[in-house]
C-alpha cells in the first residue's frame, strides 16, 4: 500500500453539481428505503387501498374514498419523516458539508433522496392494489393517473416543506412539533377557518378571497383538483365550488396543477436558500 500524500489524479476532473447531487440522492435513497418507517407507511397505504377497493366496489368510488386517506396521510408522513430524518442526520450532513460539494447540490441530493423513495412507495401502494384487483378500467385509468400525479406532487411539496421546517427550526423536538403543527393547520384546521370566514362574511362578495384561500393550501388544491376530475361537486366544499365557478372544470384543473407545482417550487427554493446560508 502506498501512503503517498499527494493526491493521485485520475483522468476525469471533479464531478459536476448534478453528479454530486445524484451520488447523495442514491445513497440517501438506499438508507430511506431500508427504514422501517417507509415500509410501514407503504403497507398501511396499500392495505387501505385494498380494503377500499374490496368494500367500495368500482375504481372511481374507491378513489374517492382513498382521497381523504391520501390527503391526510401523505402530507403527515412527508412532513414528519422529512423533518425527523434531516434532523437525525445532522452529524452526517455536517460531514458531507465539509466535503468538496456545493451546498445546493447537497440539498438537492438530500431532497431527492427523501422525496423519490416516498413517491415510489406511494405510487406502488396505490397502483399495485388496483392492478391486483383488476380495477383499472377505461373509466378508472385517467382518474387513477391524475390521482397518482397529485400524490407525487404532494410528496414533493411536503418534503420541501419538511426541509424548510428542519432548516429553519434547529432544535430537534421543536422542528418535529412545527412539522406536526403545520400538518394540523393545513390538513384539519384550515377548512374550519375557511368555513368560519365564509359564514361571518356571507353578505360580502367572497369569490376572490376564497380562491386565494384555496391556492394558499396545497391540500385544498389537491382535493379540489381530484374532485373536479371525479366530478363530485357535492363533496367539493365552499372553496372548490367557487373555484369551479370561476374557472370551469378544464381550466380549473390546469390552474390547480400549476398552483400545486408552485407549492413544490416555492418551499423548495426557500428551503434551499435557508440551507445555503445556514450556519451548522
Amino acid at each position, binding site marked *: 500500500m502506498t501512503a503517498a*500524500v499527494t493526491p493521485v489524479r*485520475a483522468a476525469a476532473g471533479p464531478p459536476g453539481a448534478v453528479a454530486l447531487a445524484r451520488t447523495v440522492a442514491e*445513497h440517501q435513497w438506499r438508507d430511506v428505503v431500508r427504514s422501517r418507517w417507509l415500509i410501514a407507511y407503504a403497507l398501511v397505504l396499500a392495505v387501505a387501498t385494498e380494503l377500499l377497493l374490496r368494500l367500495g366496489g368500482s375504481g372511481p368510488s374507491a378513489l374517492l374514498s382513498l382521497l381523504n386517506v391520501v390527503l391526510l396521510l401523505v402530507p403527515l408522513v412527508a412532513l414528519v419523516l422529512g423533518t425527523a430524518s434531516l434532523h437525525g442526520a445532522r452529524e452526517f450532513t455536517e460531514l458531507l458539508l465539509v466535503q468538496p460539494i456545493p451546498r445546493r447540490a447537497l440539498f438537492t441530493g438530500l431532497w431527492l433522496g427523501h422525496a423519490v423513495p416516498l413517491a415510489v412507495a406511494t405510487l406502488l401502494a396505490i397502483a399495485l392494489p388496483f392492478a391486483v384487483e383488476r380495477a383499472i378500467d377505461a373509466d378508472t385509468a385517467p382518474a387513477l393517473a391524475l390521482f397518482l400525479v397529485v400524490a407525487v406532487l404532494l410528496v414533493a411539496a411536503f418534503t420541501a416543506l419538511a426541509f424548510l421546517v428542519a432548516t429553519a427550526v434547529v432544535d430537534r423536538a421543536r422542528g418535529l412539533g412545527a412539522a406536526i403543527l403545520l400538518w394540523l393547520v393545513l390538513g384539519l384546521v384550515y377548512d374550519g377557518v375557511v368555513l368560519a370566514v365564509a359564514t361571518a362574511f356571507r353578505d360580502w362578495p367572497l369569490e376572490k378571497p376564497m380562491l386565494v384561500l384555496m391556492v394558499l393550501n396545497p391540500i385544498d388544491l389537491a382535493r379540489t383538483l381530484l374532485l373536479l376530475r371525479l366530478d363530485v361537486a357535492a363533496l367539493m366544499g365552499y372553496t372548490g365550488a367557487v373555484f369551479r365557478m370561476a374557472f370551469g372544470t378544464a381550466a380549473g384543473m390546469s390552474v390547480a396543477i400549476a398552483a400545486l407545482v408552485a407549492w413544490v417550487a416555492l418551499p423548495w427554493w426557500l428551503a434551499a436558500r435557508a440551507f445555503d446560508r445556514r450556519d451548522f
Partner: protein
Amino acid sequence: MIRLDGVTKRFGPLPVLRGIDLALAPGRVTAVVGPNASGKSTLIKCILGLASPDAGRIVLPDGRDVREPAARGAIGYMPQAARFPENLTGHEVLAMLDALRPEVAPDDTLLERFALAAQLHKPVRTLSGGTRQKLSAVVAFRYRPSLLVLDEPSAGLDPLATSIFKAAVLAARDAGTTVLLTSHVVSELETMADDVAFLLDGTIRFAGPVAALLARTGARSLEAALAQLMRAPADAIPDAALHHHHDEPTLRVVNGERR
C-alpha cells in the same frame, strides 16, 4: 498553511469570535485549547466552512477560501461524535464519499491498520461506538488531506486503536499535513501537539510552540501550563505574547521550531 485573518463571528448580539488572527503551519500539530464557551467549536466550524464568519477570511493551503466547495477537498475532518446513515453499510458510506471525489485515489492505509474490513459489510447501526469512531478516522485520512481537523478524536477508541490513530496523525504531520487538534485529554495533547493556540472569550490569548508556552508560563508540563492559562489567563502571559499588530497576525506559528 491555514491562515485566519480577522475572523469575527457573532450569534445575535453575542460576539463569539472577536477578530481571530492565526496561522497554522504545515507539518505541525496545532492544539486549539480553551475553556468551555471560549469560541473553540465556532472557530472550528468556521475553519471547516460549516459556519460563515461575519468578517475576515480563512484561507486554505492552496490559497482558496474554505467556503469555495472545491477548496474543501483539502480537508479531512473527524468530528467529535461520528454518525453515519444507520441503514447503510460501512462499504456504502465509503463508496458514497469516494464518489464525491472520484479524482482522488482513496488511501486505505488506516482501514487496513484498524483491520476494519470485516466490519464494513454490516449496517452502521449495528456497529459499536468505537468501530464508528474508527470508520470516522478512516474517512478523515482517506482522501489524502493537506488539512486534518480532529475534534476530540480519541473519545471512544480503545488503547490499541488510539495508538494506531496517533501514529497515523504523526505520520501525516511528518509528511507535511497541517493538523488541527482539540482534546480534553491532556496526555493526548502532550504526545501530539507541536503548537498551542489558546482561545479565551473569542480571542487568541497565546499561539506558539509548546516549548514557548512552557517557557512563558514557567510551568513544567503542558497540563500545568494550560491549567495556569485557564485559571489566570491575563497575567499568565507576558505582554509580548498578547501584543496585537494591525498588519500581522497576533502570533505566527509559521516559523515555530521543530522539536
